[in-house]
């Protein structure tokens, strides 16, 4: 998957201004950056939910715009785009919605659809919840159900918009471990918007650091996560050190030294 010279705007204002990005098959690429830097917009443009002003997105060597919607939905699935479920729906029924791009005619499910759903439930550890109404799930369970719904689409690429938000640390690690495992088992490609720089560093092959609609730095975590780059992007001083157990940089903020209003405190409060 590749993005070249992508410019996207809402009502005349450019939110993405020249983004280039390359995601290899089976890679995990995470997008980082302050609020309003265009991370979610990039994800939406990659999924053809937003039309670019200029530039192209190619998936599997073909321009994304040349795919039919359903065809694209069988290739790309998104997590974190749902509105909260206001209508009664069991987890099994919800995950079955992931089969919509594969269904035809009147949309009746067949054994193949049920197999895909059963597999997705099992992969995400939500099989025991199949009968449970969606609005009775904990935040962690809901995230896993969303992931199951996306996996039921049997995509090649998973787009994740802040999948760990509202989760406590054990659930965050559980979810990211699950994604890591799926990736090594099935060769899934992952493009994720993540809030937590340290988690992104631990799980991603490549990081893309965005500011004002442009990638400021991209590459392996060790290259992107330097104190100078982060201070320039987030506007607050940080210390970068190696993780005690893994050869990966981790970022530490320094209390009482936020340079501007848009510091990391505002970032985590969102």
């Amino acid at each position, binding site marked *: 998957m590749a993005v070249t010279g992508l410019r996207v705007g809402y009502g005349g204002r450019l939110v993405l201004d020249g983004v280039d990005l390359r995601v290899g098959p089976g890679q995990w690429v995470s997008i980082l950056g302050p609020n309003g830097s265009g991370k979610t917009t990039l994800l939406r443009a990659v999924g053809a939910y937003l039309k670019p002003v200029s530039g192209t997105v190619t998936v599997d060597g073909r321009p994304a715009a040349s795919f039919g919607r*359903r065809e694209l939905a069988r290739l790309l699935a998104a997590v974190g785009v749902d509105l909260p*479920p*206001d209508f009664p729906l069991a987890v099994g029924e919800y995950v*079955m919605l992931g089969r*919509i791009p594969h269904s035809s005619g*009147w949309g009746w499910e067949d054994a193949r659809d049920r197999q895909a759903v059963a597999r997705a439930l099992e992969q995400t550890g939500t099989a025991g919840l199949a009968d449970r109404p969606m609005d009775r799930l904990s935040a962690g369970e809901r995230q896993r159900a969303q992931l199951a719904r996306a996996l039921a689409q049997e995509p090649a690429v998973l787009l994740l918009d802040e999948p760990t938000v509202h989760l406590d640390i054990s659930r965050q690690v559980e979810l990211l471990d699950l994604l890591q495992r799926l990736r090594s088992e099935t060769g899934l490609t992952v493009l994720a918007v993540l809030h937590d720089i340290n988690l992104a560093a631990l799980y991603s092959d490549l990081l893309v650091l965005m500011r004002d609609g442009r990638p400021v730095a991209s590459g392996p975590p060790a290259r992107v996560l330097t104190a100078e780059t982060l201070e320039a992007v987030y506007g607050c001083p940080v210390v970068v050190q190696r993780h005690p157990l893994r050869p990966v940089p981790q970022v530490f903020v320094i209390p009482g030294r936020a340079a501007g209003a848009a510091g990391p405190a505002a970032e985590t409060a969102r």
Partner: protein
Amino acid sequence: MTAATVTAAGRRVWAALARPAARRRLAVTALGAALVLAVVLSLGMGAVAVPPGEVLRILMGWLTGDVADPAAHRIIVGIRLPRVLLACLVGAGLGAAGAAFQGLFRNPMADPYVIGVSGGAALGAALAVFLGLQVNVLGFGAVPVLAFAGAVGAALLVHGLAGGGRRHAMSVMSLLLAGIAVAALTQAVVSLLVYLSGERLRPIVFWQLGSLNGAAWPEVALMAVYTGAGLAALLRLSPTLNALLLGEEAAHFLGVDVGRARVQLLFAGALMTAAAVSTSGVIGFVGLIVPHGVRLVIGSDHRGLVPAAALAGAAFLVACDTAARTLMAPAEIPVGIFTALAGAPFFLYLLRRYSRRAGGSRL
């Protein structure tokens, strides 16, 4: 984990996945049976009471061309059957349209009456009569054609006023306020037309109250075409409605062309509402209560919800109309008053029962 427990767990998941479809089939079958029962009972009720067995015999005789008792035949087939069938079709159309509007607007308060679509249709129909228009579109006269235009116009207006097209679900409040405004506007214009025309437009008053009085075979045929087409379209769009439950962005990522789907759903719903209004006036609350009640029982999957709401709407309107024409006979109560009187308590009962069982609010 041993192989045996894996298969047992696998079987449990498989059973859990098959359950919603089985529940939908059961509900549709049960509602179909209830509708047949309601039709047969209703045909037997009235100034001349006919027992259900006799009703069935007469209907069989009618279908096979064997009329044993001409007087009973005239009452059942000639007078009551068109009215009961019209009630079925109008009820089915309003119920299914309500389910579609609720799904489309992602809002349990949406219904053809509440969001002003019925009012728009009534205005169109009243204009056609007032101006004495003569049009012919695909065999349909001025009244249904203008009713359809009015319904679509009102739907688009409410949709626009309530902030549709933005990324987020329309709030209940903005939808209701826009609907109330459009309904009040259309009603005022209809009233003005009635006032200006004097006696000539007396029949328009009936559109505002809603009544199945005056049902005849041509109306039944017209309704069958409109409702059949609308229902087929909505059944076809059921997977799309399901995707829209998750919001527009999620629906896009499930392969739905959201803009096109919205227009298709709006048109199908407006078509059914317009047909109902042009033959029987503004009958409220059927499209609100029926899909709501059905959803509480069988869940939100529109592949089951749309047909179940159509069948339940049909049975509900047949029951209401039977009460409307028999309770104070020979006088008749407008059926729109009845749908509200009977529907609201039933709805409250369902709400209490199911929110208690599920242990909290699901609405």
